């Protein structure tokens, strides 16, 4: 064994803590894919927007000064959610809705790919527009929590990540309750299962999609705000997370929210554990490998179902 038990437990703990933020991102992406069957390339860039929103809220808007340097960034991460939610709402209203749901019927040529391509376009604009607006210098949100740890035995638990773990799990649970217990959540799931049937049942599918899209990007933005407390970021950062998110969502089973959560968590653990045996630069390659393995061996994921008829 090239590593000790403590190393192993340390990587496992780090994996679970990092994985919780991944899990939250995956829930955001999972809601969008589940409801709309759209592969959203721009999801990572909404994450990046969440990071910058949290950054400016805690610095320029003075939340860190008001709530203190520890609590301020957390509040800022939360508030990044509604901001990106509103932005996503507008994007869906004016662009995305024209290629999904009822609007998709008119799209020919690129076919179902029209949707992916529009999100790819949004992604390019957000990344490069971000470069113009925010500049290319990496930034970070400084919080004392990310520099201190709790010790359990010999294993160190970063306090910032512990707090983000609690927030991520709490928010994911709240979203899950919203989807399973409220009228809107149920409509959303109905629209996801069979949008045609949902339409006939009087559910406004376009509106359900809009809620899903905005909620999805908003939740991912909160996850971004949480991650921003423990790592630096720049306008292209989002892309690093796209594969993380897709790997998590596919692992959990495309369309399953609960699956997305567990998938994200597992990806976090895989990523951190891979550092035990692989060089640091290859930890993302480890995720790709896992991602490809899942797609090939069990494309329906842990919680998904496969159904095909001839």
């Amino acid at each position, binding site marked *: 064994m090239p590593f000790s038990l403590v190393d192993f437990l340390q990587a496992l703990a780090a994996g679970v803590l990092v994985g919780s933020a991944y899990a939250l991102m995956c829930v955001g992406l999972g809601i969008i894919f589940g409801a709309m069957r759209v*592969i959203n390339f721009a999801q990572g860039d909404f994450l990046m927007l969440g990071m910058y929103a949290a950054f400016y809220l805690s610095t320029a808007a003075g939340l860190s000064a008001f709530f203190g340097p520890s609590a301020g960034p957390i509040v800022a991460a939360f508030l990044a959610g509604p901001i990106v939610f509103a932005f996503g709402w507008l994007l869906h209203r004016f*662009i995305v809705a*024209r*290629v999904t749901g009822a609007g998709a019927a008119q*799209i*020919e*040529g*690129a*076919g*179902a*790919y*029209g949707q*992916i*391509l*529009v999100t*790819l*376009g*949004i*992604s*390019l*604009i*957000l*990344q*490069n*527009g*971000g*470069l*113009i607006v925010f500049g*290319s210098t990496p930034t970070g949100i400084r919080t004392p929590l990310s520099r201190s740890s709790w010790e359990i035995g010999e294993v160190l638990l970063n306090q910032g990540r512990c707090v983000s773990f609690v927030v991520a799990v709490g928010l994911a649970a709240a979203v899950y309750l919203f989807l399973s217990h409220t009228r809107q959540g149920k409509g959303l799931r109905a629209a996801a299962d069979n949008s045609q049937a949902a339409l006939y049942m009087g559910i406004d599918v376009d509106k359900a999609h809009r809620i899903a899209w905005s909620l999805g990007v908003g939740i991912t933005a909160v996850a971004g705000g949480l991650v921003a407390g423990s790592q630096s970021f720049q*306008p292209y950062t989002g*892309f690093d997370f796209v*594969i993380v998110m*897709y790997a998590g969502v*596919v692992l959990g089973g495309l369309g399953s929210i609960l699956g997305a959560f567990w998938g994200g968590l597992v990806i976090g653990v895989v990523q951190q554990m891979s550092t035990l045996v692989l*060089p640091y*630069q*290859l930890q*993302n*390659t480890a995720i*790709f*490998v896992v*991602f*490809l393995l899942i*797609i*090939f061996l069990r*494309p329906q994921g842990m919680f998904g179902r496969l159904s095909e008829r*001839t």
Partner: protein
Amino acid sequence: MTLSLPVKRQLWAILGFAVAVLALSAMLKSDYFELVLTQVLLWAMLSVAWNILCGYSGYFSFGHAAFWGLGAYTVALGMLHFDLSPWITIPAGAVVGGLAGALIGFPTFRLRGHYFALAMLAYPLATLYVFQWLGYQEIPLPMKREAPILYMQFANPRAYVVLALGLLVFSLLISLRIENSRFGMSLFAIKQNEPAAEAAGINTWRWKMLALMLSGALAAMAGGLYAVVLLVVTPEAVFGMLVSAQALILTLFGGVGTLWGPVIGAMVLVPLAEGLNAELGNVLPGIQGVVYGVAIIAIILSAPEGVYWRVRDRLGVWLSRRQTEPTVPPGVGSIPAVPREQRAPVGDDLLILRDVGISFGGVRALDGVDLTVPEGGLYGIIGPNGAGKTTLFNVINGFLAPQRGTISFAGEPLIGLRPSQVCRRGIGRTFQVVRAFPRMTVLENVIVGAFVGAPDDAAARRMAAVALDQVGLSARANAVAGGLTTRELRLMELARALAPQPRLMLLDETLAGLGHDDLDGILGAIRQLRADGVTVLIIEHTMQAMVQLVDHFDVLDHGRLIASGAPEAVVRDHAVIEAYLGKKWAQQVTEAAK
């Protein structure tokens, strides 16, 4: 393909394009513009390569940067470590790209649609990290002042324009060749309905792999020359997302699935993005990406089929006036049915199923089915919904592999063969829900089916015309399949399965959804089949028609064969009526009697 202009005119167009590019190059005043022009040509070539796989077959790749990057690194590392000239390493890069295509395609073509696109995304990005880890962050190409021409290091940038143009023309010629051969037609069929293409005898796996390998090879060559032109290679620049995105954005902007679309996209967008970047790059550093982002959104929202089609439509070149429209040669309609080789007399068992079983989860879709169909027989399979009838066909023609039992056809085992191989052995099939290639004409649909039995493309065309005549659809040969009636679609599918002259036809609810008048035409076609010596196995609900048509019934229920025999005997079998057909059948009989 029918949608392209005639080959000769396209060749002239390519020549004209090459002359125009050379003239433009001669007029350009600065080295910088020559560089931009070279880049336009190289990105156009990448897009042509992307289009060969993705435009024709419909398998979208978000990972063509993998090939581009491998080509670039082949050139850079070959020069750095082994002192190899790009004259050698660019063709070598094509081999690397082709091999990478084979390696990637082998696992990835098990996936479809979104999954395929997502998996393709992972390859260049994973490779990117590997190259970073290997320490190839930035590879400058060494200057070779002693032998610049040997190492493609020209003082005059116009030489690069000529080289890039040569490669692009080469790619266009390949693309044109594909469009006008069974290769392109097969890819086009795959794009529209892959299972139907496979069942019609198209080896979809082979064509997809070929397309990906060819596409990878061309993309790698373009990437290799790109490295020579830019003199420095970094993982982000050649494996990055922008490369893959650019290939598909340029193609979609210009017109996906067309010869000229990728070129048009590159000619418009690359200079635009490059120009803005040069003018405003200092103030607005990401302007290039923003341009591509806006371009792709604008094109999807306003003209999702691409600029090429828009322009053609505006010019009034309507599809109905296509000059390549294949016309049925006069006289073909009156050719009598093909003389068939003498078949073995009725009685020799052609298809034998023994103890065939398959389960989906806990459901036993087929449970120990024994079935024997003699050559020349016209056998009917009946049974209630969910009895396993279509599953039976799927098992015979290779869509599903049974978990137990044996199937033999003309003495040879069938299990384990791909549907296209089953078709090649002489089994045609139709589908419960018609699987047409909606954007092809009726004749083209049938030609795709004929490939499997035809030595060359001309023969396929003749066989297709004959098959259309057999089912009485010759008059509609040039109609686009998307606009046919149900009856015509059924007949077309029948002709498609019939064209390669199969020994056994599997007809899956061919009569479903047809009115009384339509029924007669199809029944006549089926009787004619049998008269021609084709063995027929037919699934049907329309009982009255079936009793008159077939000479043997097999009754399936819950995956088991529960009765078998002459139609009159089986329909009088009270156990069959009450236990398995129940009131529904009784109603059908009364209705039919009215």
